């Protein structure tokens, strides 16, 4: 039986991907941001070794333009090619999907009354590939591996055009994903990742907003058996963490999938990377 063994959340800041791709991770500006991922990379390689990652992310006007805006879309393709976001694709491996499990989850979610969009062809942007760069590989220079060590099921959430799904709906989606994984007959070690956030605002006179206290309170809220984050309204993310801080609702899909209680394995917070606060947490479900 497939099972969700861990949840990982991380910012997916494009500049982190650029630092990896240009070999700048050891520079003074970037080193503290990357340092917090060293524990995770060692754990992924030596201990966690997922077969599949369900990677919750958002597209940033890359695969989707304004013609069509799915609230929840699940990638069921054999593979997903890193997108050209306007300056050439990132020099990272093609992302291999897991169509068997992805279709199973998609169909389970629809029977469970989530109104999924099924995607069979999608290029994936930094929102999906930067978290892979932060988690995988073993050398201190954050060299990109020749192939990603596991399959990936992209789960795209609209957080660009308002309203995004409510926090409650995201959490409930995570719960339903966990039920779907549990009913997949093959024995698979599955992780779920939430990406995006933390504090950032990329637009307008208020750009550059960072709220270290709120972000850390959010990280606290993911640990243990509290479900208070489930009920945080959108307006609070926007006021407290900036207009793009709303991406954090995607972390709630991850949290919801871990069940009633979580245990903290690792945590990291750093300001700034480019315009953004870097946040990262690794959790496991408490059975």
């Amino acid at each position: 039986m497939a099972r969700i063994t861990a949840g990982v959340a991380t910012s997916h800041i494009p500049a982190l991907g650029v630092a990896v791709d240009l070999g700048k991770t050891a520079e003074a500006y970037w080193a503290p941001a990357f340092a917090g991922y060293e524990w995770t990379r060692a754990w992924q390689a030596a201990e966690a070794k997922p077969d599949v990652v369900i990677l919750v992310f958002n597209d940033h006007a890359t695969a989707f333009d304004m013609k069509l805006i799915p609230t929840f879309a699940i990638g069921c393709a054999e593979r997903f090619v890193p997108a050209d976001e306007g300056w050439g694709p990132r020099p990272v491996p093609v992302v291999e999907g897991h169509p068997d499990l992805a279709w199973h989850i998609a169909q389970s979610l629809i029977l469970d009354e989530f109104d999924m969009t099924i995607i069979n062809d999608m290029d994936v942007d930094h929102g999906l590939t930067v978290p892979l760069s932060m988690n995988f590989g073993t050398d201190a220079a954050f060299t990109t591996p020749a192939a990603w060590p596991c399959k990936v099921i992209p789960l795209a959430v609209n957080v660009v055009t308002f309203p995004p799904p409510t926090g409650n709906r995201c959490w409930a989606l995570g719960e339903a994903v966990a039920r779907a994984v549990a009913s997949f007959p093959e024995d698979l070690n599955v992780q779920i990742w939430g990406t995006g956030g933390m504090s950032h605002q990329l637009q307008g006179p208020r750009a550059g907003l960072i709220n270290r206290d709120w972000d850390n309170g959010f990280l606290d809220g993911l640990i243990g058996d509290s479900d208070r984050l489930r009920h945080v309204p959108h307006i609070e993310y926007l006021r407290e963490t900036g207009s793009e801080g709303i991406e954090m609702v995607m972390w709630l899909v991850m949290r919801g999938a871990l069940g009633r209680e979580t245990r903290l394995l690792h945590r990291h917070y750093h300001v700034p990377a480019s315009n953004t606060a870097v946040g990262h947490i690794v959790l496991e479900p408490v059975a």
Partner: protein
Amino acid sequence: MTDIHAYFAELEDIPGTRVYTGKRAREGYHLNQFAMSLMKADNRARWKADEAAYLADWHLTDEQRKAVLSRDYNRLLDLGGNIYFLAKMFSTDGLSFVQAVSTMTGMSVEDYQAMMVAGGRSAVGQRSIRANAASGDNKGAN
């Protein structure tokens, strides 16, 4: 369930922020689709060769056209632009997110970067236009 009118009213209450609502998405539809077209190298080449001629193919309002040509990003946000779409424009100009974003804050790139290294912009006094007005604190209002 959520009162939709209250929900959207609150989104307009954040100082110095244009939340990308359906209303803005409608107004900015052709603007954002134009920007999206710059994801393709061929289109970027045509755009760079003659910006005004390139824009003629897109149903932009005169105001949007003017703001595009003058790279007035705050104005473009007012006219329905979304930052992830507008990013195709400033990337084509060779600007990073930090450089482009700083132009919206009235700060120099250097000052903006220094602010970020020092921990970023505080949320204090930046949470609510209404609350600022009530307390007589106008900082960042609108």
